[in-house]
């Protein structure tokens, strides 16, 4: 870190963010807004959990909604059928999902890229099928009612307690991500993201690394889903095992920036708020699908690196004196450069225009 302001600025931002989150329940004008806050925090935890896989290894999963749903159902079933205390059930459920994630990861992570996404989508569809059809256990489409952990609390108080529980879980998830980011393990994971073949050639146990981080991500996702079950108290397979949930998480993480610690959190704040707004604005019409789709397409096409890196790049451009860090070329940049030079060679009239995020990464150093 070259100078003081760059070191203190992130810390200050974190402090402001934490203060804003902690103060939100007292500032929320009514219980509905507060419950929206819980939903958004749930998304923030889920998106951060997703980013353990998506951000570090570059494997994009559209199936994390299903892992959250599994966590929710496991928690609910452990409370209702096994009579476990609510929060014991939550922990046990997360462990169960983590164990289940091992064979899932073993199958999904053997192949790269496309197949992984296909498996993640298939996971959602198959679980939806199972949980809808296996009505004797899960209640099927009638849903599963989960008893509240604090029966004495009034509704606004209930929201408030769960808001803080989610905030605590978010803090743990973000801290874990930060620790991984600085560890040797995290370095190996990022090597996988940049070039899996080279990482493997250099001795990184890529398969084991991917599996470990997938299981970790699944556990955090299940914790968030389980907490949701305890908070909301009613589970329906259609919402628990929805491909949409997975796509929301991807959208949030991408929009915020998958390579940054707070990217998914910021993305969740933006997209989660937007989703709650769409819900009130469009009601039950399918236009919220269109809105989500358009947003996702724009993010993928225009700023696949997210808003935080875009802002950071703008900041660096404003203060040119600070460009002292060495920015290595990623495999993505190199491929991009090759692609671009190839298109220049052809010098066809249809050479496409650089998208917003693409001009920013030159070699420095």
């Amino acid at each position, binding site marked *: 870190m070259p100078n003081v302001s760059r070191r203190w600025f992130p810390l200050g931002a974190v402090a402001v963010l934490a203060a804003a989150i902690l103060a939100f329940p007292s500032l929320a004008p009514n219980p509905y807004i507060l419950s929206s806050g819980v939903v958004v925090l749930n998304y923030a935890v889920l998106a951060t959990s997703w980013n353990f896989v998506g951000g570090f290894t*570059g*494997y*994009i999963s*559209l199936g994390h909604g299903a892992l959250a749903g599994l966590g929710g159902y496991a928690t609910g079933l452990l409370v209702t059928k096994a009579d476990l205390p609510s929060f014991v059930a939550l922990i046990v459920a997360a462990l169960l999902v983590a164990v289940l994630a091992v064979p899932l990861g*073993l*199958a*999904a992570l*053997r*192949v*790269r*890229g*496309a*197949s992984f*996404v*296909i*498996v993640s*989508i*298939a996971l959602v*569809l*198959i679980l939806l*099928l*199972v949980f*809808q*059809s296996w009505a004797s256990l899960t209640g099927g489409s009638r849903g599963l009612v989960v008893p509240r952990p604090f029966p004495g609390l009034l509704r606004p108080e209930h929201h408030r307690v769960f808001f803080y529980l989610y905030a605590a879980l978010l803090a743990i998830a973000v801290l874990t991500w930060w620790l991984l980011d600085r560890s040797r393990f995290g370095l190996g994971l990022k090597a996988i993201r940049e070039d899996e073949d080279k990482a493997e050639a250099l001795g990184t146990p890529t398969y084991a690394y991917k599996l470990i981080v997938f299981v970790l991500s699944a556990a955090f996702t299940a914790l968030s889903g389980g907490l949701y079950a305890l908070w909301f108290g009613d589970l329906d397979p259609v919402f628990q095992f929805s*491909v*949409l949930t997975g*796509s929301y998480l*991807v959208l949030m993480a*991408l929009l915020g920036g998958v390579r940054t610690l707070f990217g998914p959190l910021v993305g969740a704040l933006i997209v989660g708020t937007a989703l709650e707004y769409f819900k009130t604005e469009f009601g039950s*019409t*399918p*236009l*919220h*699908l*269109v*809105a*989500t*789709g*358009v*947003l*996702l*397409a724009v993010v*993928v*096409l225009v700023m*696949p690196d997210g808003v935080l890196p875009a802002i950071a790049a703008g900041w660096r451009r404003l203060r040119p004196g600070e460009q002292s860090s060495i920015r290595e070329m*990623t*495999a*993505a*940049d*190199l*491929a*991009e450069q*090759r*692609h671009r030079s190839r298109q220049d060679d052809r010098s*066809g009239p*249809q050479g*496409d225009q650089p*998208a917003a995020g*693409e001009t920013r990464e030159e070699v420095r150093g």
Partner: protein
Amino acid sequence: MPSGGLLLQSIILGLLLGGLYALLAAGLTLYFGIMRVVMIAHSAFLILAAYLAWWSNERLGVDPLLSLLVTVPLFFGAGVLLQRMLLSRLRAATLTMMSVLLTFAIALIIEGLLGYAFSGTQRRIQLGYGSASFGLFGARIAVVKLIAFGLAVLALGSLYLLMKRTSFGWALRATIQHQDAARLVGIDTERIAGFGFGLGLATAAVGGTALSLDTTIYPSLHWHWIGPLMAIIVVGGLGSVPGAAAAAMLLGLGQSLLQIPMGTTWAQTVFYVALFATLAFRPQGFFGGRLAQRF
């Protein structure tokens, strides 16, 4: 043990269904071969075509098969535009992942717009010959299923001839095999790739029309198709058209046969079981699969 007639009927229905699966999987395989793109929106376009067929029957009173005259060129154009305007703009290094997200977004937009335009109500084409069927050794086969299968075979056959017998097909296969080498021998690979996408989407138009003949359609139906189709192209080995066709027939048959003891809902799990088993034991797919190893 089910009766012989029921068994025969399941086998025939399974093969007929497999034909439709094979056609749709051929489209998906084409996209993957050309650009390493997994086209999630394929089945959304399928449902869109089915809705257009239903709409032309309901509002214009024409036979749904006639809607092919409009939908096939329309979808071809849409496919070319999709490739040239959107997918070719994605970065090369993250193309596979990002294209999944982009086509996923397109699927959401199509589903949302279909729901907005036609509401979520379940729709079904009422045809004069809709309930006609004939017996064959104790099995009852609906005529519309046979028409759907015939359409699929016809489309697959013309796709095969186009790929093998024309210079365009030659250029397309060259582009799929090795893009740089194809460019070196003077093939305009960008243009060919666009046309390849158009062809893929045209298969969705044919498939959707075939589907609309005997299926109740609703906007979110595409999720029920994308899972099986994805399973088929993975089992077939990503990028191999004959592999996808073989896997489609096999899994269609499996689904149809399993419906006898397990019921329609649980029979769908055969696709996912096959998908996970393939990835666990033979990730490059059971047929062909030269391309899949690179990913």
